[in-house]
């Protein structure tokens, strides 16, 4: 009877014999501790006996002061920094050519803090593709119900550019990741653009400061940040509205967006192309993740939209 051999693993030479395998079990128990990253590297060509493909390996200092080298589980090595905390995870390391399996401890990065249990307050979130008019809507809301809502600044690692209002706080990638690791961001996401990866996020202190003033924090956001915010504060805390461009069909909606983006004159054609791709994804998001939205509003008459949203805000504030 032929045992099916795993394909991802190549054959290992002498290592990983039964007795060595048995002795290694003691190490597993000692390595099941939390730790801190002292250094890390990506080994592009692991030695024979390991799965083909890059491996992120860290030098980790464990709680008891001992150090180990172990794989780091991360989907994105560029988000790792020295000093990050890591948690142990049991992993299959290798399989030898007799099918004997070696397990080891890898370390993974905890991403978010636990969801707050008590209801913290409402956050008004406007989500929609570029060009749909979110900024305009939010600016108008700030004037009509400005004593009840306040915009939350968005943290970003991208370079400031013309046309940016005071909605952005620009920080360096290192500062951003430090805030993220310290748990000071309610949510964050990275958006790859043509040349680099940009990070965006909201600071919990900015949101909480607005609650202190008995106002509702308002964010103009996109799908990943919305999802993260709903996970962080609980879905019920988010007054979530999707703003859609006018048009019966998807094609018409996208066409409306394209016109608005061109009229706006803030982006190059390349940037508009990127935005249109995201816009398609955004429109699909409304359909697939309808549970994340309290309502989808078509932004064809700005006054009625602002009126509608303003009314909903006042309802919540009075409740």
């Amino acid at each position, binding site marked *: 009877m032929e045992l099916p051999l795993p*394909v991802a693993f190549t054959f290992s030479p002498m290592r990983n014999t039964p007795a060595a395998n048995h002795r290694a079990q003691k190490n597993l128990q000692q390595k099941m501790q939390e730790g801190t990253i002292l250094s890390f590297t990506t080994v592009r060509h692991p030695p024979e006996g390991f799965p083909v493909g890059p491996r992120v390996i860290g030098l980790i200092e464990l709680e008891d002061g001992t150090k180990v080298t172990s794989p780091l589980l991360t989907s994105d090595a560029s988000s790792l920094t020295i000093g990050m905390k890591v948690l142990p995870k*049991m*992993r299959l390391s290798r399989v030898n050519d007799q099918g004997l399996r070696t*397990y080891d401890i890898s370390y993974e990065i905890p991403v978010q803090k*636990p*969801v707050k249990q008590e209801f913290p307050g409402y956050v008004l979130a406007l989500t929609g593709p570029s060009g749909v008019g979110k900024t305009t809507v939010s600016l108008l809301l700030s004037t009509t119900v400005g004593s009840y809502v306040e915009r939350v600044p968005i943290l970003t690692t991208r370079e400031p550019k013309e046309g940016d209002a005071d909605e952005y706080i620009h920080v360096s990638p290192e500062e951003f990741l430090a805030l993220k690791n310290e748990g000071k961001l309610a949510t964050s996401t990275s958006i790859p653009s043509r040349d680099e990866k940009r990070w965006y996020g909201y600071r919990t202190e900015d949101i909480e400061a607005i609650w202190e003033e008995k106002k509702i924090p308002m964010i103009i956001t996109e799908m990943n940040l919305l999802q993260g915010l709903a996970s962080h504060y609980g879905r019920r805390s988010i007054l979530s509205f999707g703003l859609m461009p006018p048009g019966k069909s998807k094609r018409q909606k996208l066409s409306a967006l394209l016109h608005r983006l061109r009229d706006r004159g803030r982006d190059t054609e390349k940037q508009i192309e990127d935005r249109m791709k995201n816009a398609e994804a955004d429109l699909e998001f409304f359909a697939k993740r309808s549970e994340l939205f309290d309502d989808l509003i078509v932004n064809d008459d700005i006054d009625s939209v602002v009126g509608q949203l303003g009314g909903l805000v006042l309802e919540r504030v009075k409740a």
Partner: protein
Amino acid sequence: MKSAILGFGLSIPSRKIKAEEIAAAWKQDADAMISSLGVTEKTVPDAGEDTFTLAFEAGKQAIEIADIKPAQVSAVFVGSESHPYAVKPTSGMVASALECDPFCHCADLEFACKAGTAAMQIVDSMIRAKQISHGLAIGADCAQAKPGDALEYTAAAGAAAFVMGTADNKNALCQIDQTLSFTTDTPDFWRANGKDHPEHAGRFTGEPAYFHHVREATKGILEVGKIDPKEIDHVIFHMPNAKFPNRIAKEFGFTKEQMEHGFIVPTIGNTYSACSPLGLAHVLQEAKKDQRILLVSYGSGAGSDAFLMTMLRDGVKLQPDTRETTYIQYSEYQSLVKSH
């Protein structure tokens, strides 16, 4: 003295694949598949995860929640269709890695998707027989499916673990009031020795298989427990897809509210031996003291285990998963499942 769940744990891979991704790869109609199976995405174990690593992580969490020392565990039973070895028990590896005392009853179980609940029944008996004071029952799987087959949309990976002890334990969370099993020889789904993928019998897997056994076991436990469906607060059925459990629930008059917390298949998939156990693990986080729980599993081949349980105190919320979910493409999915 009845037995009770003292602590529970779960382990689910952070990698998932969307149904639309699978459909695109096979040029099938994604919307049709999603609407017929009710599963939009499923978990995929990555290269370093297997039934043992998932069972271990779930067991570790269960021991923490139960607030006992690993050395107090005197039995570990692991049910799976994808034990890492054909001969070399997962239960022994888990008991050793968790640092249970070597004087420990261990064995692996296979009964298709109900091997996890079978493990629970054995630990329950050993506790009621006063043979052990604490035991660990685990359902864990990295499920396989033939490429291009409908099962590919649902065959998922995960593990759920339960530390069980006597019902008078200070941490007793959920008492096992009654349990029974209904078993026949029914060839609805099987995997021959040495084969990578299981075979299934199409529509024969419905009425003669799933529905017949789940129905009989449910009828049986309601009778033995002298309880009406309306009195049950939480219901968990084995979930090979979204349709089957909903249909059997309707037969008995169970409502969406009763099914809500245990109905985990739409975004996880069918984790085979971990399937209804994972549903239970989700219920145990939400249920309140004195609420009644009905769990009916189903394993092809075929059989059903039914449990009637009572919450002895309010449920315990687990720390939410701290990892980001990564959605993978079909090409990566293919290379990952080959290695299991």
